[in-house]
C-alpha cells in the first residue's frame, strides 16, 4: 500500500512517500530528527496538520487534509516510553483497548497474547511496579489486543537498558512470525533493524532516501548505511548440520556453507546472519592454511571509496545475496581489484539473529 505524507512545522518539512508491505516489518531508519516519529504520528492521525494519502485495509485514513480521527483507526501504537495508564493495573491497561473493540472484530486472542508476551504474572501490578522492559511488553500487548490492521512502533526499545532490550527482542521476533498485519517500526538502531526488519525505509531530513528489502538497502554502496563505521551485510540461510563435538552449526547460504557457533536451532530453520564489513577479508586464493573458518566464493560487484580516507568499500555477490568488505586502498591497488572478478571472502566473525 502507498503511504504519502507532507507536514510542515517551523522550518522542518516532512515530505515522504513509500510503499508499505502488506505484512512483515518495515523499519523506518534514520538519525534522530530526520522525521521518523513525525511520519509515524501522521500515519496514526496524531498530526492534524498533515496532508497525504493512506488507505489501510480498504479504509481511507488520510486523503489530502481529510483525516480519520485516531480513535476510529484500527491501529496499534507502541510509544517510545510505554505510556501506560498510571492509574490502571496491567490487566486494566490491557483491557482498555480490548473492550473498545467489538467482539466480532477481535482477531487476537486474549489468552494467547498474555502467554506470548509472558504477561500473566504482571496482571495485578501497577505500571510503577514494573521494569522498563515489562512496561514495554504490556504496551505491546495493549496495542496488539485491539486487533490492529496496522501496528506502529516508535523506537520501543530506545529507552530501555540492554538487559531489557534483550528481554523484549525475542517477543518482537516472535511477533514478526505470527502477526499477519503490516508493522512499521521506527528505529535509529542498526542492531534492531538487522534483527527485525524485512523492509527498510531510509530517511534523512524529512525525506525518504531509499527503500527496499533490508539486505539490499544495507549493502548499497551509494547509500550511507554501507559507509557507517559498523556497516554490516545480512545473509539469509538455512541450518543444515550440527557439529556437536566442535560446538559448531553449519548454515547454508546460497549453496555455500557458513560455520557459526553452535545454534540451538533444528535443521531446516531459516536464520539471519550478519557480517560486519570490517570482518571480511578478500583473497584471490582459497584460504586453506588459515585460522579463518569461513571462506566463500564471491564476485566483486562494485567498489567505492569509503568515507574514511584510505579505505575502500567493496560489495561482494554471493548468489542472490551481497556481502560488504572494507579494505585499505593500498590492498586494493596491490591486488588490482576490478568489478566482475571472482574472489574468496574470508569471514572472521558472524553474528546470528
Amino acid at each position, binding site marked *: 500500500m502507498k503511504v504519502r505524507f507532507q507536514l510542515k512545522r517551523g522550518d522542518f518539512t516532512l515530505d515522504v512517500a513509500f510503499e508499505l508491505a502488506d505484512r512483515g516489518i518495515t523499519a523506518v531508519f534514520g538519525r534522530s530528527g530526520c522525521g521518523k516519529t513525525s511520519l509515524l504520528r501522521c500515519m*496514526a*492521525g*496524531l498530526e492534524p496538520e498533515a496532508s497525504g494519502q493512506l488507505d489501510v485495509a480498504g479504509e481511507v485514513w488520510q486523503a489530502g487534509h481529510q483525516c480519520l*480521527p*485516531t*480513535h*476510529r*483507526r484500527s*491501529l*496499534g*501504537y507502541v*510509544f517510545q*516510553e*510505554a*505510556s*501506560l*495508564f*498510571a*492509574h490502571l493495573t496491567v490487566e486494566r491497561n490491557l483491557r*482498555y*483497548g480490548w473492550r*473498545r*473493540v467489538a467482539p466480532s472484530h477481535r482477531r487476537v486472542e486474549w489468552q494467547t497474547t498474555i502467554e506470548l508476551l509472558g504477561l500473566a504474572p504482571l496482571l495485578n501490578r*501497577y*505500571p*510503577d511496579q514494573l521494569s522498563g522492559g515489562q512496561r514495554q511488553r504490556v504496551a505491546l500487548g*495493549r*496495542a496488539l489486543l*485491539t486487533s490492529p490492521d496496522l501496528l506502529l512502533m516508535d523506537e520501543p526499545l530506545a529507552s530501555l537498558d540492554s538487559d531489557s532490550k534483550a528481554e523484549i527482542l525475542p517477543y518482537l521476533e516472535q511477533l514478526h512470525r505470527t502477526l499477519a498485519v503490516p508493522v512499521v517500526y521506527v528505529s535509529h538502531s542498526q542492531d534492531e533493524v538487522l534483527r527485525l526488519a524485512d523492509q527498510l525505509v531510509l530517511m534523512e531530513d524529512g525525506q525518504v532516501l531509499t527503500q527496499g528489502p533490508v539486505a539490499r538497502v544495507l549493502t548499497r554502496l551509494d547509500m550511507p548505511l554501507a559507509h557507517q563505521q559498523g556497516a554490516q551485510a545480512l545473509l539469509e540461510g538455512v541450518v543444515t548440520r550440527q557439529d556437536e563435538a566442535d560446538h559448531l552449526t553449519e548454515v547454508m547460504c546460497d549453496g555455500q556453507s557458513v560455520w557459526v557457533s553452535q545454534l540451538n536451532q533444528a535443521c531446516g530453520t531459516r536464520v539471519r546472519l550478519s557480517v560486519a564489513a570490517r570482518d571480511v577479508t578478500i583473497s584471490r586464493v582459497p584460504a586453506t592454511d588459515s585460522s579463518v573458518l569461513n571462506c566463500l566464493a564471491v564476485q566483486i560487484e562494485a567498489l567505492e571509496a569509503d568515507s574514511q580516507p584510505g579505505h575502500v568499500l567493496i560489495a561482494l555477490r554471493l548468489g542472490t545475496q551481497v556481502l560488504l568488505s572494507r579494505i585499505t586502498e593500498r590492498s586494493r591497488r596491490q591486488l588490482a581489484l576490478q568489478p566482475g572478478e571472482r574472489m574468496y571472502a574470508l569471514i572472521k566473525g558472524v553474528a546470528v539473529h
Partner: protein
Amino acid sequence: MVIAGIAEADWIALFLTLRLALISTVLLLVLCVPLAWWLAFTPSRAKVLIEALVALPLVLPPTVIGFYLLILLGPRGAIGGALESIGLTHLAFSFTGLVIGSMVYSLPFVVQPLQNAFQSLGTRPLEAAATLRAGPIDRFMTVVLPLTRRGFLTAFVLSFAHTLGEFGVLLMIGGSIPGQTQVASIAIYNHVEALDYGAAHGLSLVLLVLAFSLLLAVYALNRRFRLVGVAQ
C-alpha cells in the same frame, strides 16, 4: 430558636454559606475545565492575556470586585439591565448574584490547579488512549479525570474554602439579607460589630468545624484510592 447554642438565623447563614460554596465550586469546576484545557495546550499568543485576566481577582481587593459586580449585575448594569429589559429581575442582592460573585472571586483558584494538572499530564496519555479507540469524551472520563484527580481536588478545596471565608465581595453584591444573602462570614462580622462576641465565637467555631470535617473527608477520600503519580 437556638440549636446547639447557635441562633436559628446563624444556622441559616451557615447553611447558606455551604450551599453557596458548594454550588459555586461545582459550577466553577465544570466551566473551568475547557478554559484550563485551552490554557494548558494552546500555542496561541492570547494565552498570556487570558492568564493575566484569570489572575486578576487575586489582585483586586474583594470589595472592589464586589463594587464592579454590583454595577454590572444591578438594574442599570450591562447584565442586570439586559435582564430587566426582557422582564427578568437583575442579579444584585440575590443568591444567583452571590454565586456569580464567588465564582469570579474564586476563578483563579480553580483554573490554575486544573491548568497545572493538565500541563503535567501532557498529551501523551490522551494520544495513547486515542490509539486504543477511545473517543474524546471517553478519553476525558477514563484518562484525564482519574489522572488529574489531584488537580480537581485542589481546585475544589481551594474554591470551596475560599468561598466559605469570603466577605467583601459577598457583602457588597449581596447586601447581607438574612436567609438570602447573609452568609456566615457576614453574620460573624455583624456579631462582632454588635459586641456579641459569644455568638461570633460560636458561629466561627461551627464554621471551622464544618469546614475542617469536610476538607478532612475530601482528603481522606483521596487517600483511600491508590496514590499514583501522574508523571511516569
